[in-house]
């Protein structure tokens, strides 16, 4: 079924159409969220919020824009919110004087298959760089399209992508063991 038809169905209140949108976008959205956030539990939360936002604001979606880009823009913002939350809670824990934080997965039923992003990628790359890199490597996005998602110019997106690729190359050359994915 065509995407525009699904959107029109959703606007008419057909929940089955919205379910199809969720099914279509859940896997790529999860991949992007995991690449930005680095862990599955947070990525699941971000995706959940994403689809609720999509449903709420579907009326304001501009049909001239790419629906996929619109969805990814919302997801990117939700991921930034999650990162802010995480930073705030880390600061709180630091203030409380604890050294380690035990993070339990939000959905233990799924955690057995959880994949984490290599820790060096999380440490060395900024969120914008990880987003740009993920969209470029996984989705084949151009700088212009990345700019649409990150809400910046193509030039700026190009810089994020360049920095990310440069850092990754450096890490790969160093042969860092912490880059082993899995």
């Amino acid at each position: 079924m065509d995407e525009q038809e699904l959107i029109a169905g959703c606007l008419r209140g057909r929940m089955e159409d919205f379910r199809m949108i969720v099914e279509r976008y859940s896997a790529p959205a999860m991949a992007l969220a995991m690449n930005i956030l680095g862990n599955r539990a947070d990525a699941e939360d971000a995706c959940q919020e994403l689809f609720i936002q999509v449903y709420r604001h579907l009326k304001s979606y501009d049909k001239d824009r790419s629906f996929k880009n619109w969805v990814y823009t919302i997801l990117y913002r939700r991921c930034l919110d999650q990162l802010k939350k995480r930073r705030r809670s880390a600061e709180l824990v630091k203030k409380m004087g604890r050294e380690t934080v035990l993070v339990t997965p939000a959905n233990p039923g799924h955690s057995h298959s959880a994949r984490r992003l290599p820790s060096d990628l999380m440490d060395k790359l900024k969120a914008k760089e990880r987003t740009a890199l993920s969209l470029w490597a996984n989705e084949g996005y151009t700088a212009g399209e990345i700019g649409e998602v990150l809400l910046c110019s193509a030039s700026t997106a190009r810089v994020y992508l360049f920095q990310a690729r440069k850092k990754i190359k450096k890490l790969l050359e160093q042969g860092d063991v912490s880059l082993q994915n899995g």
Partner: protein
Amino acid sequence: MSRCKTVKFFYDLVPLKPWRGLLIRRHIEKCPRCLAGLASREEAGSLLVQEGANIADFLWTEVEKALLAESGGEHVKDRTIRPVVMRPRGWAVAAILLLIFIAGFLLFKDFRSDDVSSAAAVPARFELEYVRVGGQPANTVVYQPQGSDMIIVWAGKSP
């Protein structure tokens, strides 16, 4: 080689994104030597999570729950319009309601016709309270010919 170094120098010198973007577009993206210093799509892909596990069912359950809670318990699924299928009991109730409606309508109609007739009678009544001619109370004669609806009012100046 020297050009690559110059570009790198200017890239580091001016930390403005539009400027850097221009250098990347004009030189770095086209130069094989510069590109060799960047990770390829495959290299990047090997480190990134490429396809999130299919958790559509899990996500849908959670999203639907949230949307239901938002709509105040109304079952979102039932928002689509379905054809009405009535049972015999339903038909009986509908018939009774229809009869009540018709009876009510007829009663209301009768009351309304009374109201209308009384309202229509009002213009037939003729009242004359005060007639002045030249600022003085007039000498007034009201005359209705026998068997006629016509009323003649004669107002003359008081002597």
